[in-house]
């Protein structure tokens, strides 16, 4: 391992001045010259879509790629609950500083302070921009914007559009993007997947793609590449991510030289519908906003199989309210998830298999009336009933934690540039803002901050200074990359083994969930590190794919993604093993408080692990090299998180 400090490139000066300082320092591209620069944006979600639209508005020549059939379908669309902003419209004491503080603390002190402060500053501009686009946020009768509260905060700063906030924000960005497509400023490539990054003379100069309808493998050259390709939660097979979400773009960029930071920082969401059977293809989230009015409980006694309605109040354990009286049901996601696991491990879980806890609205319905609950959460209640066949207005919901988000991702500096000059990474695909745990309603905020308000400036600063030669796709580096991608595709297509792609994916997912999920320990991680290379070898030997490279071949798409998950999974376990502390979503069973008021809570080790771990790819089957970015906390002082 090398101990080599990465240059985070954070501006000097007090934290509240840093972004102003950077914006003033930046070199600018003359408006008339912007159209001479081609920028590739991969991904069309909140981050990619907003970045592509904003850069086209500035005048850059933009090409945007997504694997879905339309940019409107990116997985940002599934975010339900809301988006945070330090507007203080509720007059409840919110401020940029408080949002910054909550986010650093919520992230368990493993995020970069300067980035988080900028995020909190920009949050207010995002709301303005989205309102102006016509995003139909919830309103009060007087016509002003409504807010709700969310986990990890004691102020109401979350803006929302029913339970479809992500959808509405994405459609706002999508409409801006379509405006630019209609104007000829963005060329959109739907149903197209990035399969490699092309680096020339140390700079990112383009990508290799496969057309998912015709199978054509193509090279695209540019002056800069932006990845807004989302998270890698599907490494666990079962997650709340869309089925197509994958790590391929960032993983292949990683193999071309982009360091991968904190891969083991994954978020488990406490409120998902429990697994029903082994055919299960994905898990469905019930918005965290439900915790505002729902009370979480399990039976007091283990092995209690009575119906919820037959269990009297005195024999119920509202364990979050009991253990965390200050935050109650609104503790951060990692804390709520672990508490649910603990209750189930004690034999107090409910529903088939005993892996579930109740989320009960009876008290709220009694207090506010069914109509009010329907107005707030109607679509979520309907969705729950469609999936489970149970009516949550009458019986409590059953919920259980599931993989939801990945805080880790490609390492980026303050300007969101990776360790490969010219390649920028935005939104969930990067590692920068959420530390070891993301607070609810912060992902939408980060995706849009990066895409609307940060990247469009910082990329100009890069382009203004990179006077490289014009390169097109006829360059040898592109030809080599096309050859490599074609060879891998052909190898997969020729594989006529016995096991399906899904069976390998399920096997990996289950192993990752057991060893590197809600709780991790040395023995489990070590065993997983032995097992994953075996599954990977087996995959390349025994996977079965249908032929047909020149047509839509969904098995081939999945196979390429699973091949990458099989490599990433190993790095995640390795990262989790080396991080010999508990922090945020990374809970090492060896590191818990053993006494005092916080007994059983996660125990950080700030003396030894107060850094971001950035991994450098060293070649197939080689151990990756660790680089550390030390994290300093000058403004939010390191303390143990306390939600009691």
């Amino acid at each position, binding site marked *: 391992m090398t101990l080599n400090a990465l240059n985070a490139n954070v501006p000097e000066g007090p934290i509240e001045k840093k972004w102003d300082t950077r914006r003033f320092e930046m070199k600018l591209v003359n408006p008339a010259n912007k159209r001479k620069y081609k920028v590739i944006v991969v991904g069309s979600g909140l981050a990619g879509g907003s970045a592509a639209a904003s850069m086209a508005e500035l005048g850059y020549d933009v090409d945007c790629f997504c694997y*879905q059939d*339309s940019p409107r379908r990116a997985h940002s669309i599934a975010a339900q609950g809301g988006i945070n902003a330090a507007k203080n419209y509720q007059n409840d004491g919110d401020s940029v500083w408080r949002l910054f503080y909550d986010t650093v603390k919520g992230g368990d002190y493993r995020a970069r302070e300067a980035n988080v402060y900028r995020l909190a500053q920009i949050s207010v501009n995002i709301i303005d921009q989205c309102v102006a686009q016509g995003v139909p946020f919830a*309103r009060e009768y007087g016509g002003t914007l409504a807010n709700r509260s969310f986990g990890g905060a004691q102020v109401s700063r979350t803006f929302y559009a029913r339970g479809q906030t992500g959808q509405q924000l994405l459609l706002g960005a999508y409409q801006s993007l379509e*405006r630019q497509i209609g104007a000829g400023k963005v060329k959109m490539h739907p149903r197209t997947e990035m399969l490699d990054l092309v680096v020339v003379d140390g700079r990112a100069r383009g990508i290799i793609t496969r057309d998912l309808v015709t199978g054509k493998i193509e090279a695209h050259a540019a002056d800069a590449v932006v990845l807004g390709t989302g998270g890698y939660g599907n490494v666990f097979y079962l997650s709340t991510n869309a089925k197509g979400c994958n790590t391929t773009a960032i993983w292949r960029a990683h193999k071309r030289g982009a360091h991968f930071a904190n891969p083991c920082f994954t978020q488990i969401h406490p409120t998902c519908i429990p697994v029903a059977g082994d055919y299960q293809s994905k898990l469905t989230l019930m918005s965290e906003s439900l915790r505002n009015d729902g009370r979480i409980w399990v039976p007091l006694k283990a092995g209690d199989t009575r119906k919820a309605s037959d269990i009297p109040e005195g024999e119920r354990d509202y364990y979050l309210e009991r253990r965390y009286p200050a935050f109650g049901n609104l503790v951060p996601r990692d804390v709520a998830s672990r508490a649910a696991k603990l209750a189930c491990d004690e034999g107090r879980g409910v529903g088939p298999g005993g892996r579930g806890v109740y989320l009960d609205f009876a008290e709220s319905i009694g207090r506010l009336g069914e109509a009010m609950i329907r107005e707030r959460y109607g679509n979520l209640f309907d969705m729950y009933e469609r999936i489970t066949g149970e009516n949550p207005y009458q019986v409590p919901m059953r919920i259980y934690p599931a993989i939801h988000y990945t805080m880790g991702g490609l390492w980026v500096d303050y300007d969101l540039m990776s360790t490969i000059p010219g390649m920028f990474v935005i939104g969930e695909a990067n590692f920068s803002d959420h530390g070891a745990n993301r607070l609810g309603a912060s992902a939408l905020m980060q995706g849009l901050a990066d895409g609307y*308000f940060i990247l469009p400036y910082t990329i100009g600063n890069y382009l203004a200074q990179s006077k490289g030669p014009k390169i097109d796709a006829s360059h040898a580096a592109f030809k080599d990359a096309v050859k490599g991608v074609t060879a891998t595709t052909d190898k997969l297509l020729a594989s006529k083994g016995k096991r399906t792609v899904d069976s390998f994916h399920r096997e990996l997912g289950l192993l990752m969930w057991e060893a590197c999920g809600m709780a991790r320990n040395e023995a489990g991680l070590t065993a997983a590190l032995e097992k994953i290379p075996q599954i990977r070898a087996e995959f390349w030997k025994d996977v079965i794919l249908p032929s047909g490279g020149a047509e839509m071949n969904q098995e081939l798409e999945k196979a390429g993604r699973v091949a990458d998950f099989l490599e990433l999974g190993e790095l995640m376990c390795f990262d989790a093993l080396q991080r010999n502390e508990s922090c945020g979503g990374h809970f090492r069973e060896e590191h818990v408080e053993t006494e005092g008021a916080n007994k059983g809570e996660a125990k950080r080790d700030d003396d030894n692990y107060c850094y971001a771990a950035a991994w450098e790819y060293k070649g197939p089957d080689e151990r990756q090299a660790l680089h550390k970015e030390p994290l300093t906390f000058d403004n939010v002082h390191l303390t143990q998180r306390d939600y009691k």
Partner: protein
Amino acid sequence: MTRTFSLTLHVWRQKSAKQAGQFAKYIAANVSEHMSFLEMLDVVNQDLLAKGEDPIAFDHDCREGICGSCGFMVNGDAHGGHRGTTICQLHMRHFKDGEELWLEPWRSAAFPIVKDLAVDRGAFDRIIASGGFVSVPTGSAVDGNAIPVPKTEADLAMDAAACIGCGACVAMCPNSAAQLFTAAKVGHLGLLPQGQPERDRRVLAMVGQMTAEGFGHCTSTGECEAVCPKEIPIAFIARMNRDYLEASVKERPQANRGGSG
């Protein structure tokens, strides 16, 4: 006790838009009542792969009914015909042992078939690109609360904005009309103060694009509203028609000189 049963599926198989398609028959055995419809198809596909056959292609992604990727006809009903439900959210408890199901892609000249049950809905994107937006470049917004929006109108706009662009409305319409999709966006933006400056040109451009894409005309049969998984009311079509008529006959001020000085 979990109920399991079997079904007979007749699935439209077509390699590409250029080749002819036909129905193929498959047995879905051991279907659990808790499966979603797509999970049932996943299991069928795993069996096909094991036999060395080509699995059935269908679009899907979020499987939570919000991305709008999925959708095909089941026995002539878009998304299987359950109120407010996409096919990914339709669970097998609604089916009986031994049922025969006919699965077909959306059928519309404006939605060319990509493969099997997957179609190309790019026409919807082009309708949005023609005017389904508010022209507000990043950075030029005023404070969010500087634009008050009455709650009732915000709620109504949200009803329309809930459209997921799945295409069920077109697939179910005997005329293959895209009025409900287009009207949902015209209605969403037309109801809000932010959408007023471009209200006339928006409706004219979007309706023009819709016609150019080859969608049919609306004859108010109401099938679209009945199958819309987001239950968008047909009243938005009436609103769009009103807007269109008004925009068509209105005298629009036209300055002699541009503003670029």
